[in-house]
């Protein structure tokens, strides 16, 4: 058996097959479904671990299947891909555990977990895609797999959110498609290459390349929720909490951001992009998004909506880091892919716990909740401080490299964006913490239920606690080998001409 060929495929298939089996599983076979879910998630983690080790030792993993004459479906494990794969595999397990706890006794679980698995499949595919067409393929699959999850509840609001989501993402996908095809007609290849494959192109084509860049980034920006294409994200928070968690931390939003990284680094090449003059406008768009979304977040009373705007803002850090041309900023942007994921998933898990256990959906209802659910709120606190960028949490590391990179690249204005964002983040997170810990509890919650022996059921409690601990460790142990930061350094060293 040829591992180099099969491993990437297996990683994609592990969740795909599980999803397909779950689809046809009768609703009442709860145990089998849980076993399948957890088993597949564990299997994937093991496979990813093997591959991680392999990539680190210099093995090449690559799957190639013919798709069109001259174009192949390529799954390749490069360093950047591994970062995202490891993130999604790890968080998938936690989210699955969480979702099992969250959706206990609710209808349509087979459908839910089926699409859940598809969603992860698509995300992993996006991560492993070795060329733009493969990327596109999984990117669209992701749109399709998440739509049923968003409208899972079947309410009018959910349908509306789903519709908005589709309008945005399908239009974005169409732009991406045009850009991709156009690129293909110019170059005849779509293979991701470190430092890009376009710099050798005749300068006659440069105007076309700029248009292609805009097309691609706009298409990806929809999912990455770049201003003004972010409208769908706050609406999509009607989805069940595990879905929001996955959407915001790993799957959809990250796929967009990851795509932007791919396009800039492995299609255009960062230095070539800079010479085309397209990075500065992108950085400005990202900055506007960061500030704008933070300001919007201030005014949201719905907890999940506030978190959603926070996501819009935070994900643009990634774009910003990528658009500032310089290795340190790149590190900041890429590592934020992981850091934001871990922190935001914590926050959404906690929001879900509040909603599920106490029926709390609004910030204004959270007064004193820290005393009722200390573990949940402790995790939330860590996540929130991480978002603010307080040391030594994960968010601090990202901000550190972003700021440093900006200074190194001579783009001092970015510092103001970061500072402003820090203040705004503090402004919309700290009142929550304040209310939760120090507010007077009214004594009764909108819809309190007793789940389990602890403050809530263990399946709901353990995932956020683990991710919160991770958020601390990712910061504290940032310099340890195999940490995302060190891995990102490895990625970055490949992207810049020495």
């Amino acid at each position: 058996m040829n591992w180099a060929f099969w491993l990437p495929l297996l990683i994609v298939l592990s969740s795909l097959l599980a999803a397909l089996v779950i689809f046809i599983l009768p609703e009442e076979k709860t145990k089998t479904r849980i076993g399948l879910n957890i088993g597949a998630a564990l299997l994937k983690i093991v496979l990813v671990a093997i591959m991680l080790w392999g990539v680190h030792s210099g093995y090449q993993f690559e799957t190639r299947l013919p798709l069109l004459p001259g174009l192949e479906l390529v799954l390749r494990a490069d360093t950047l891909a591994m970062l995202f794969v490891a993130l999604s595999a790890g968080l998938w397990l936690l989210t699955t555990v969480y979702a099992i706890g969250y959706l206990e006794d609710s209808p349509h679980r087979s459908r839910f977990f089926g699409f859940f698995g598809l969603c992860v499949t698509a995300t992993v595919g996006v991560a492993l895609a070795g060329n733009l067409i493969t990327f596109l393929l999984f990117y669209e699959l992701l749109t399709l797999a998440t739509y049923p999850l968003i409208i899972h509840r079947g309410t009018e609001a959910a349908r509306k959110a789903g519709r908005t989501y589709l309008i945005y993402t399908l239009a974005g996908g169409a732009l991406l498609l045009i850009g991709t095809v156009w690129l293909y007609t110019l170059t005849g290849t779509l293979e991701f290459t470190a430092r890009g494959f376009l710099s050798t192109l005749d300068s006659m084509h440069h105007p076309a390349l700029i248009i292609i860049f805009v097309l691609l980034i706009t298409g990806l920006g929809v999912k990455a929720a770049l201003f003004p294409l972010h409208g769908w994200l706050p609406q999509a928070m009607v989805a069940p909490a595990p879905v929001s968690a996955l959407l915001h931390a790993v799957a959809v939003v990250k796929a967009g951001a990851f795509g932007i990284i791919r396009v800039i680094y492995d299609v255009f090449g960062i230095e070539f992009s800079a010479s085309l003059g397209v990075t500065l406008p992108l950085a400005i768009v990202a900055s506007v998004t960061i500030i704008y979304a933070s300001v919007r977040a201030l005014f949201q009373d719905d907890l999940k909506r506030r978190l959603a705007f926070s996501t819009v803002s935070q994900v643009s850090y990634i774009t910003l880091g990528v658009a500032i041309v310089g290795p340190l900023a790149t590190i900041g942007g890429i590592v934020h892919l992981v850091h934001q994921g871990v922190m935001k998933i914590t926050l959404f898990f906690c929001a879900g716990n509040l909603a599920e256990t106490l029926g709390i959906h609004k910030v204004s209802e959270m007064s004193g909740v820290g005393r009722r659910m200390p573990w949940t709120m402790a995790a939330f606190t860590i996540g929130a401080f991480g978002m603010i960028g307080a040391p030594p949490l994960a968010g601090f590391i990202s901000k550190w490299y972003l700021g440093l990179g900006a200074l190194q690249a001579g783009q001092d204005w970015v510092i103001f964006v970061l500072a402003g964002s820090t203040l705004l983040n503090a402004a919309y997170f700290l009142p929550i913490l304040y209310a939760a810990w120090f507010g007077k509890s009214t004594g009764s919650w909108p819809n309190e239920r007793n789940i389990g022996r602890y403050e809530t059921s263990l399946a709901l409690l353990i995932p956020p606690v683990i991710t919160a601990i991770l958020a601390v460790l990712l910061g504290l142990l940032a310099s340890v080998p195999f940490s995302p930061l060190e891995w990102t350094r490895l990625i970055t060293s490949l992207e810049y001409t020495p």
Partner: protein
Amino acid sequence: MNDILWNLLLLSVPGLPLLLAFPPLHSRLPWFRYLAVTPAIIVALMSMTYSIELSWLLFGIGLGIDGQAQLLLGVSALLWIAVATLFSRKTSNSKAVNNLISSLFMLTMAGSFGAILATDLVGFFVFSTLMGYGFYGLLIAGDDLHHQTRRAARIYLVAMIIADVMLFEVLLITALVTENMSFAMAHQGIAQSDYLTLYLWLVVFGFALKAGIWPLHFWLIAVYRHLGSAMAILLCGVPVIIALLGMLRWLPLGETSSITTGVTLQGIGLIGLLYTCFLIFFEWLKNRSFTMITVYTMLLASGLFIIAIGTGLTDATTWIRYENSVYYFIALLSLALAILLALTIRLQQHHTTTTATQVDDNTAMWFERWPATAVAWAGNIGSHTLPEWRSGWLAKVNHLGLLVCVWKRSLAANERNLQGWTVAITLFLTLAAIITLLLIFH
């Protein structure tokens, strides 16, 4: 073997309080507040210079103990013991609140000890941030809280966050010029770089805000007005002293001279001194509040401190001569102030406090009212002397002002009284203006 023991001991100074911050641990231990201080006392008593490098932590963090740190650690441990005693008396009825207060107590303690021991910029920053947030928590934890205290605490928080943002920029600048973030290396690196002036001003501004030095003292006074004795002692003994220490540690004193900066600082310190004298005088005439006078004394001392720093920056050689005395100065200052405060607050509690409510009205600071002030001002010059259309325009502005109010009210959904954000915005704008100016000059 001895090394391992020392490592453990040094690590446990911030580590033990950090560990004890977990409710399951501290709720099962008796005397845990004193227990947490123990390593600090042991280290303070053993006279030895030792340092460790934790390269795996963050970007590499160093902890070390030398004469100066020992002195401060000792004093601060004493203060903590005193505060612990005061704290253990007043406990809340609710177990959850007690746990929360204890956790915050431990976190603040860990932060303050860690900051004293830190031998590099990042470490200091991490620990002082921990201390800052912890302290804010302590300020507002508790069942019956005066709403003015809550407000004052919020102002403290905003001031602290802004200071942290500035210090974060300092960190970035330092990281840009040097790989090694330890104080010694950072000083060397920054002294040779173009960023020196920017660095100096950011550090001074950031820590001055944290220490409440004139003219950035507004939060300090607001906070002190409504504090109990324990918290008052803690405030002067921990956040203020750590901030002063930060200035000493972060500035490349004795290694490089910057005449203009130094002289300007001396000037500011002097004006601060004069201003504080006035304050004390008026306070004496008006209220005879001993607490406030003590606080103003603190301002006085910090003014002196700034003059000293200014002098140090003007002339490196002078600094080296009296460097140690500055450390003694702040150590003694914190002790003296603590004792003074404890006494005055005791005194005050025996007298009836009738003045407090009158003072409350003045706590909204002038810049918190700036939108309204601006509109009022424009109204004054517009509606009386100018034709109709101008006043219509003003009405629109007024409307805008109303919008701001709506904005404020909508914020109130989160927390009843969130005027603190005006402070945040004003400060941020000021900060932006200053940094821009500095960048232009740079």
